[in-house]
């Protein structure tokens, strides 16, 4: 019970975010209007995805350092969590974009980055599945994971800065940058980020246990 405090915290925060997110007063901004509430559900997905993938890389490095399969299982499960949150981020973004921009998939660098992140990590899964031997699989996957993450950081962090984006907060767009993200929104936004991240960790932990049980079943057969 006490060991799992963070799961309760995550659930509580998300319940709070869902309630507050739909009921608080939001500032009326051009174009955005009520859709600014997507800030609590769309933006934290990307934060969680990046954090989960970052943790996944850390576990890959740990695996290469000490060769314990446990670390590789974590890296695998965390990358699954990352893919899940990335897909959810894309879906929430597409629903939002449909109302705000009139199209779910405009030509925007941030969307490209997100789609490519998911492609890269799906490739990571394919790579894992194409190697049978457990140790070899773990090693190859760890190397690819590190490689992929470095390219990803270049792509998600550096590349969008050199481009103009349709996303709110970017240059020339109405929206929330540091100045008009008012304190009301912050009171919900920060809990949302922490809450979704904790949920992501929980999902990854469950995935890891599921993977392990499946592995054990295979060994029995």
């Amino acid at each position, binding site marked *: 019970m006490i060991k799992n405090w963070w799961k309760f915290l995550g659930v509580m925060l998300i319940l709070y975010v869902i309630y507050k997110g739909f009921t608080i007063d939001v500032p009326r901004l051009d174009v955005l209007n009520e859709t600014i509430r997507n800030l609590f559900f769309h933006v934290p997905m990307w934060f969680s995805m990046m954090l989960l993938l970052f943790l996944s890389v850390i576990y890959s490095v740990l695996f290469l350092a000490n060769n314990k399969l446990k670390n590789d299982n974590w890296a695998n499960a965390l990358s699954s969590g990352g893919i899940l949150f990335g897909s959810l981020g894309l879906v929430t973004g597409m629903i939002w974009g449909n109302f705000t921009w009139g199209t779910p998939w405009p030509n925007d660098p941030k969307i490209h980055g997100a789609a490519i992140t998911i492609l890269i990590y799906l490739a990571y899964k394919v*790579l894992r599945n194409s190697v049978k031997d457990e140790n070899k699989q773990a*090693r*190859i996957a760890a*190397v690819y994971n590190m*490689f*992929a993450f470095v*390219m990803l950081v*270049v792509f998600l962090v*550096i590349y969008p800065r050199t481009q103009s984006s349709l996303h709110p907060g970017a240059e020339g767009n109405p929206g929330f940058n540091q100045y008009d993200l008012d304190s009301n929104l912050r009171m919900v936004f920060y809990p949302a980020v922490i809450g979704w991240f904790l949920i992501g960790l929980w999902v990854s932990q469950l995935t890891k246990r599921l993977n392990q049980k499946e592995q054990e079943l295979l060994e029995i057969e």
Partner: protein
Amino acid sequence: MTKNIISLCRIQLKQEMKNRNGIYGIILYVLSSVFVVYMAVKEIHDSSVWVGLFWVIQLFSCLNAASKSFQYSKGRDLYFYQLSGPRPFILSKMIFNLILMNLVFLLSQLIFSLMMGNPFEDTSSFIILGMLGTSALSSILTMMSAITFKADNNYTLMAILSLPIMIPLLIVLVQSSNAIIDGSNISSISQNLYILGGLNLMIISLAYTLFPYLCTD
């Protein structure tokens, strides 16, 4: 170590020369894919289409060339690998691929310009940009080829692994090529050149540190 790398490169060159199918295959691949595009498009009025088609062809030619880079690694190469250790081995593969793919780049640039017309006024800037970009492509592809070789060495896996990783590079290259067509010279796209150079160094150092882990069997 430098001595090791140089002799490994020479051995690879000799191997390629002895078994020329590989090199002819690459040249033919470039020729026929350019010709396919030529038959499909005939004339290009929009220079950004030229740039897009060119880099896609270049991407696939490099992919094709790199997928063969570990094909001898079961026989004699394994012996050389044991003699020299993993780091000189991967560096020599990278240097060899770098030279090979830059030649492929020059070849496809020549053929593409002959068939589709040359939209560049400042061709030398484009060649400098292209060689930098191709070097980065070749180091990524060499590493991916090593990973695929360790997995089960099929071409599909190689494409799945490397295509998404190469898209960032492709975007930088296409943008700077378009900028050159629009009349900027080499100094005004220097930011992109730094990105390419930095990326190249980063990939090489990553490969240098990670390759030994890939090979411990």
